[in-house]
């Protein structure tokens, strides 16, 4: 489904701020894989997702989605294959537009946008039904501006928007990090539900090691722009947080535990 071959990316090459963000990433995903991605700050987790989404051109390597080479495809073209949810709840939606307008925008992902009216009555029905599954009461506020929603509601809506047109790959970039624990748990459960129901292939970056173990069928750990650990199936199921911390220091020779990760793993 997804193939990343030897991806390299250096930011600000040739300056003092030079940063090797991706240093030969190789990853292959099967259809229906739900992969959690962990790693310290600056390990390249988000950069990998952004490289995949085409936010920037990679220096070296090859990206293939569902057998199609997309390495040179620009971000908005590649969006046809990808559903994305960002860390910042403000980033996934258009604040000054209504809930239904946002959904209508997302419904046309990967399609031509012309001079037809931006939303139809049939779509409204569909959106209403889909919003009901969130159980947040949003189905009665379809004409409210998204800016009026809370962070959790906005993330839930973004999740819905990312999957309204079934994506080949769903990219979740620390999408619960900015939420309070209770809301984060809700949004995570919702993510799991949507991924299961639609049998989606997904990559989820998280700083919460417990979540990384609980969710998904595969776990990868990154450090210095490389994947240093990859656990699947039974091996992944039996992992513990302590084992992960140990694995990290074994392989990288450094401590994984920054404050944020320790806090959120308790």
């Amino acid at each position, binding site marked *: 489904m997804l193939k990343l071959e030897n991806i390299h990316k250096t930011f600000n090459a040739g300056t003092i701020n030079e940063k090797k963000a991706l240093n030969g990433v190789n990853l292959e995903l099967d259809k229906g894989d739900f992969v959690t991605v962990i790693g310290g700050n600056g390990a390249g987790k988000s950069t990998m997702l952004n490289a995949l*989404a085409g936010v920037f051109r990679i220096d070296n390597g090859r990206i293939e989605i569902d057998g199609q080479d997309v390495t040179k495809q*620009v*971000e*908005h*073209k590649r*969006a*046809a294959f*990808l559903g*994305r949810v*960002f860390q910042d709840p*403000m*980033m*996934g*939606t*258009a*604040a*000054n*537009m209504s809930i239904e*307008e*946002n959904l*209508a*925008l*997302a419904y*046309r*992902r*990967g*399609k031509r*946008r*012309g*001079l*037809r*009216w*931006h939303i139809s009555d049939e779509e409204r029905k569909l959106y209403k039904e889909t919003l009901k599954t969130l159980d947040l009461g949003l189905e009665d506020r379809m004409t409210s501006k998204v*800016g009026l929603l*809370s*962070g959790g509601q906005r993330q839930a809506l973004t999740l819905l*928007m*990312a999957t309204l047109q079934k994506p080949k790959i769903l990219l979740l970039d620390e999408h619960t990090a900015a*939420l*309070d*624990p*209770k*809301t984060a748990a809700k949004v995570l459960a919702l993510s799991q539900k949507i991924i299961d129901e639609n049998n989606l292939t997904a990559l989820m970056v998280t700083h919460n090691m417990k979540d990384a173990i609980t969710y998904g069928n595969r776990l990868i750990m990154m450090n210095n722009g490389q994947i240093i650990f990859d656990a699947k199936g039974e091996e992944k199921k039996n992992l513990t947080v302590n084992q992960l911390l140990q694995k990290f220091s074994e392989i990288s020779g450094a401590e994984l535990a920054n404050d944020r990760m320790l806090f959120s793993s308790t």
Partner: protein
Amino acid sequence: MCDIAIKIPKGEKKMLNIVTGAVALGLLWGIVTLGVYLTFRILDMADMSCEGSITLGGATAAVLITCGFNPWIATLIAMCAGFCAGLVTGVLHTKLKIPILLSGILTMTALYSINLRIMGRANVPLSSNGSKAVDTVFTPLVNMFKNMVGDYDKNSGMSWLYDVITNKNFAALILGLIVVAIVSVIIYWFFGTELGSAIRATGNNHKMVRAQGIHTSTMIILGLVISNGLIALAGALIAQYQAFADVQMGIGSIVIGLASLIIGEVIIGTKSFHRVLIALPVGAVIYRMIIALVMNAGMEANDLKLFTSITVTFCLSLPLIKKGINKLIKKRNGGEPTKPIGLEPVFNGAKPVDYDGENEAHEDITEEFAEAKEEE
């Protein structure tokens, strides 16, 4: 039609024509305001090329009309020239990655020379051989009104009405209304389509829009093209109304557009898109009325731009002033939270200057923290 003869003294007759003139000019500037709204509010960009586009439209139309073109065709060509100006600004900004403010200024500066080239001199009067006035888009309408009241006895008591109706100002008012109505309907429709909706979203959030498969650069260019086209159309009509095009006619137009925009938004409101579309020409008309008033009261024409700038500065800083007043009230009430005074936020553009939102977000976070603590 009239046994009732309402006599109006001569001075007031002149006043009436001043009023219709102000309304007419206001309506024509309403189209400029609409163009400014498209960039300033919908795209969330301050597009300075507006100042050059008005002149471009006026110059193109004036030169073509004096060359004998049909005034409507000249006006349409002027509008297309505006499209091109918008395209240039858009390409400078999106492809060459020049900040939008600078892109606009570059286009505006370049247009100054281009406009002089088009006109061949600094001012083109709309008359042939410098004497007889040539036909403009307003001429047929003036003639029509003249014919309508033609057999009416000029010397009876209602002659003031005759004067008003047969004046060019009245024709401009009616035509202005028609053009504003047509343009507003088209804009309303366009921004309700998939494409228009994508442009609106682009003004909100680039990252999200790209993630939804929309090319933000194309949307920005399209928005700038439409905006500058409208502004050039207005320039063409204004030049025909005032019977000349001048290389200086666009100076300060963005501030005038903003002033009209803010006046309209405050008075009519921004609840829905069609409301905004009504607010824009209304704001422009009120702005013209105010100008006519202060001029009548003796303000020098040279001081106008200073007056407008100060007004716009005041309006844009209203939210801050409001905040200050609220703080003062709060202090006086011994720290008790009070109901904020009822001033609407003026700067509620695509990305609002978040003077309230900041506090809200802050409260949210503290609330969430409290909740989280409780759980633990």
